[in-house]
């Protein structure tokens, strides 16, 4: 027999109360750690998803919107840049990387990036981690696309699959099932890539977009996971994107639809963003001339230039107060958990005073009684903290999965050891403090009063 064994027997002698109290503490710890972990993971995901672009240029209203729409695919950008403006920017500085992008189309809810092959060859979805092609190759022609790993996984499409894109964010469709997906009855599997179906109207699939039935794209490559939100994009050729939009425009104007990229006009050749990177020394992530380039571009009132990393930091600055509120909420839950420990022990004392009197008869000192109750509350805190850490790990993975499936934001929550130790230590201290009042009550137990025979 030992003091610890005595305490554990006492705890397990009232399992319901102990389990409920431990669970309350565990939930509080898990919430606190999860909030902290998700916040850090979210921040890391955003920072990482900036990739290796030093600057991004658009015609959007603000730098933050430029970054959110242009790099994080939050919404289709509304204002385009002309090809002339793009050429002026690209030719006006010795960029190490200048990649035009056109956003606005989607495939089964996944954003489509119409761009140049450099998006896969040069742009890095995470700093220092270039794209790697899992299967197939980079796109070369205007009607070829490469799928991000999540797109391939979620849609089941692979090399050779054919698809239509949707203008806007509505649900587009795969071209492999003409009976269901193509009301005109055209066998798209038999149709040549890039074939035009001039005869029918666009099929509106919902209020937000319509399917570009005029052009069929083929999957020529699948990317390996990058662990960023870029895994949910379909990457295609910029000219293909222009062609798709040229159909819309010509149809609206009552003019003949284009049959090839040669029919594209200057007004068709629009981009919504330009990813830029200044030259750097080998192994360096940034360079001193980024600021110089930024200042130079900022002077042009026709464009908005943004530093992605700065904008991400600004975004976290904006939500910092919210973070504090969540952390305060978690701390509040932890304190309420401590109160539940106090109440559970206080109530159990009423039933255990006879037991305490017996321990005193056997020679247990008042101080030892005090220590036993305090240790008991600390053990509740310790077990609760341990279970809470496990819950936080499981909950973090669950939350990350839900976040990825519902919003596409890829985060990798991990419980930082130092944070877990600190929160656990704070929990044990709080639980011990919560045990103080019941411990004093036990300390003051009048022995003689509780040794009388039971009625």
């Amino acid at each position, binding site marked *: *027999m*030992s*003091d610890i064994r*005595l305490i554990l*027997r006492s705890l397990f*002698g009232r399992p319901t109360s102990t389990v409920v109290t431990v669970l309350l503490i565990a939930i509080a710890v898990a919430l606190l750690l999860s909030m902290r972990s998700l916040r850090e993971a979210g921040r890391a995901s955003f920072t990482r998803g900036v990739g290796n672009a030093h600057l991004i240029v658009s015609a959007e209203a603000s730098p933050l919107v430029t970054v959110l729409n242009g790099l994080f695919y939050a919404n289709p950008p509304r204002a385009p840049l002309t090809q002339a403006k793009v050429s002026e920017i690209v030719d006006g500085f010795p960029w190490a990387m200048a990649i035009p992008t056109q956003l606005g189309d989607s495939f089964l809810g996944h954003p489509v990036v119409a761009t140049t092959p450099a998006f896969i060859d040069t742009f890095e979805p995470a700093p220092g981690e270039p794209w790697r092609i899992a299967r197939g190759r980079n796109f070369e022609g205007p009607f070829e696309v490469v799928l991000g790993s999540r797109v391939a996984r979620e849609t089941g499409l692979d090399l050779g699959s054919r698809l239509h894109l949707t203008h806007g964010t509505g649900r587009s469709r795969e071209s492999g099932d003409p009976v269901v997906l193509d009301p005109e009855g055209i066998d798209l599997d038999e149709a040549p890539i890039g074939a035009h179906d001039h005869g029918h109207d666009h099929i509106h699939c919902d209020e937000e977009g319509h399917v570009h039935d005029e052009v069929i794209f083929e999957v020529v490559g699948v990317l390996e996971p990058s662990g960023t939100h870029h895994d949910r994009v379909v990457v295609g050729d910029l000219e293909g994107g222009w062609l798709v939009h040229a159909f819309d425009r010509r149809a609206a104007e009552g003019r003949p639809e284009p049959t090839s990229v040669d029919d594209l006009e200057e007004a068709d050749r629009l981009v919504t963003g330009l990813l830029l990177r200044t030259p750097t020394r080998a192994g360096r992530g940034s360079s001193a001339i980024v600021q110089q380039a930024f200042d130079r571009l900022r002077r042009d009132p026709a464009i908005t230039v943004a530093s992605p990393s700065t904008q991400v930091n600004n975004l976290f600055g904006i939500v910092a107060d919210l973070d504090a509120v969540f952390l305060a909420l978690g701390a509040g839950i932890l304190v309420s958990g401590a109160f539940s420990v106090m109440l559970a022990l206080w109530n159990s004392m009423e039933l255990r005073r*006879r*037991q305490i*009197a*017996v*321990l*005193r*008869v*056997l*020679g*247990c*000192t*008042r*101080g*030892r009684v005090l220590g036993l109750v305090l240790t008991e509350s600390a053990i509740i805190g310790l077990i609760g903290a341990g279970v809470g850490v496990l819950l936080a790990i499981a909950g973090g993975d669950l939350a990350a999965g839900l976040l990825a499936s519902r919003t596409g934001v890829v985060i990798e929550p991990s419980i930082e050891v130092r944070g877990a130790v600190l929160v656990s230590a704070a929990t044990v201290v709080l639980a011990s403090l919560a045990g103080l009042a019941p411990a004093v009550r036990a300390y003051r137990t009048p*022995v*003689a009063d509780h*040794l*009388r*025979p*039971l009625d």
Partner: protein
Amino acid sequence: MTPCLEIHDLLFRRPDGFSLRVPELVLEPGQRVLVAGPSGCGKSTLLLLAAGLLDAAEGRILIGGDDLVPLAPAARDALRARRIGMVFQTHHLLAGFTARENVALALLFAGVPAREHADRAGRVLSELGIERPDMRVDRQSVGQQQRIAIARALAVGPDIILADEPTASLDPSNARAAVELLQNACEEHGAALLLTSHDPTLAELLPRTIEFESLVAPAEVDA
């Protein structure tokens, strides 16, 4: 030989007005004494005072020559743990714990090394006829619970056993058996026995009987 219990000029007062004065009580080692008196006369209070669980206002209470009264509470608790065993009418065993654990608790507070607890408790329980020392006490019969309570009191090898109305809830034949068991156990372990009871018939079972009325100063008993 030093008496195992000496009480001299003891005065105890309770806030509700009850007071108890015991001019003198001496118990020699191995002696077995019945203190007989009606319920509520103060017999239990006397035992609690002798165990150091109540604070005397005046006088001396010596256990094997060591005065309990001036001792600090923790020192008094330590002395009780090593040298006094107590048995109660309702046994006061810890429910949910096994017989062995109940006995081991007494060893724990007496400072006996933990590695000795299981064997030593098992030995005492075996001597008292407990066949299932690892069964929870609340699942044992009343008779077995009484034996476990006696085992717990004797496990540390005390100088004296203080038994407070141990037969109060028993019928006459079982009461007789319980007292004989207690006496035999004390004799085997070399412990003195101070037993209180309201049942005068127990007097024939113990070598010495003291009427509680003759023990106390009459004027001091207010309640």
